[in-house]
């Protein structure tokens, strides 16, 4: 294996884990709810679900860059959900979410990994530059939002709120 390529491949893969005090089947149902997907990736992309298995993604980069792809679930099992972008994606990518029981009364562990294959080669930095967000943050924040949604039914926000800027409100 070429060590340089290996390093770059790791940079382009983003992983994060959270533990949520709910059973796996309930969390899986919530994850697969099309409305959920459109709410938990907002820091990264607009996700428009087409049906239970496919969705359209639009990620905006700095300086007006727009990157689109369509994703499709390729496997939905009791402990694992996998999806992949379809042919023609501006930034090909795959995702995998694994559910594992957490110890004691702690509920369920969610392990999320998304791999990006930006045009021009697999380079982690390219992902950051394309989307203006580091890959790790893309998945971590999505999992945090999902955890909040699963536990409280809402996602924390301060947008918009009073502030002495931009005409009196922070957006």
């Amino acid at each position: 294996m070429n060590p340089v390529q290996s390093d770059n491949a790791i940079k382009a893969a983003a992983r994060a884990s959270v533990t949520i005090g709910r059973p796996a089947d309930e969390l899986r149902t919530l994850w697969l709810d099309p409305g959920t997907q459109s709410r938990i990736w907002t820091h990264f992309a607009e996700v428009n679900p087409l049906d239970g298995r496919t969705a359209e993604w639009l990620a905006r980069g700095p300086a007006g860059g727009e990157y689109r792809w369509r994703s499709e679930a390729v496997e939905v099992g009791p402990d694992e959900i996998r999806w992949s972008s379809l042919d023609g994606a501006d930034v090909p990518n795959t995702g995998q979410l694994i559910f594992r029981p957490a110890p004691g009364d702690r509920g369920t562990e969610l392990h999320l990994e998304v791999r990006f294959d930006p045009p021009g080669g697999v380079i982690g930095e390219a992902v950051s530059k394309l989307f203006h967000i580091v890959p790790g943050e893309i998945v971590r924040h999505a999992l945090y939002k999902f955890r909040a949604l699963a536990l409280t039914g809402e996602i924390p926000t301060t947008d918009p709120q009073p502030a002495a800027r931009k005409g009196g409100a922070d957006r």
Partner: protein
Amino acid sequence: MRALCWNGVNDLRVETVADPAILNPKDVILKVRLSTTCGSDLHLIDGLIPTMREGDVLGHEFMGEIVDVGREVTKVKRGDRVVVPSFIACGQCWYCQHDLYSLCDTSHPKPELQEPLLGYPTAGIYAYSHAFGGYAGSHAEYVRVPFADTDCFVVPDGLADEDALFISDAAPTGFMGADFCNIQRGDLVAVWGCGGVGLMAQQGAMILGAERVIAIDQYPERLAKAEAFGAIPLDFTKVDVIDALKELTGGRGPDACIDAVGMEAAGTGLQHAYDRVKQALYMETDRGTALRQAMLAVRKGGTLSILGVYGLMDKFPLGLLMNKGVTVRTAQQHGQAYVPRLLEHALRGELTPAALATHRFSLEDSPTGYHMFKHKEDGCVRAVFAP
């Protein structure tokens, strides 16, 4: 509405901003009745915390009346007079269910700003920089309160606004610090700091059964308040605190020491903030001294309860704690765990939080209030704003 806004270092102005709106179904909007200053605000104001943004509305210790409710709010209702802890907690996550509310897993909307510093995001807090969530504060006519059924506590009739106000933060923080001491019969508790939190820690230790409470500070008017509460005052500028404590405890040392001073200048622990504190060395030295003194004074096998807000302190004599077998307890306030009993204590007159409210201002005059509070003019313990 009108609100007190931070516009840069020591630049506070009351400005006209948009009214807050209900953003999530468990939110309420409060018409603020009273809101107060906190020592930890001073470091935001002094610009020691880099994730403040010009225009942020200040204030995290408050009470008021509910004027609008989200569609999923069931326990509290429009018209309720309520007090709200400064940390925002969902009541549903593992931390909230274990009474560790300031560590709530779900209330921080900007975890990416905080996680690199602490390893994990904490609960969000009102007006305590964007690294702590960036929620708009309470020095305003109205404030949005998320998770209202968990975070709004109805103030019983017969309890004054001024008493309820400090049950938002100073009282639960101080009481939690005393609770950390696991006070047993005959225990002596020493408290460094006679500001709002220190005074409430002293009353908390008394309520929890301390034999004696010793209050350490340098400001006569604050020591007088501690003495009025029943504590033994010690002026650290006039006596050798370690010697005095040994004498007061028959050579044993206090069973528990509570640090209610802190090194708040280091704020959130951001390196930038710490560097600036290092430049202002007198602050670091002064404030770190209180904690080191408490570590030296506490008896062997005793408890050190840390309430002062610390950042990165790189000269911490760990061996002192290890060799003496000291138990260290610390946290930001888990207020929701304490507010119900504190309202009861206040109603019975065992806790007298209103004594902290030394100066009262309109919201329009709040910059003057902060000036007096910061410089401890005219014996100011806390400045209270009535919008």
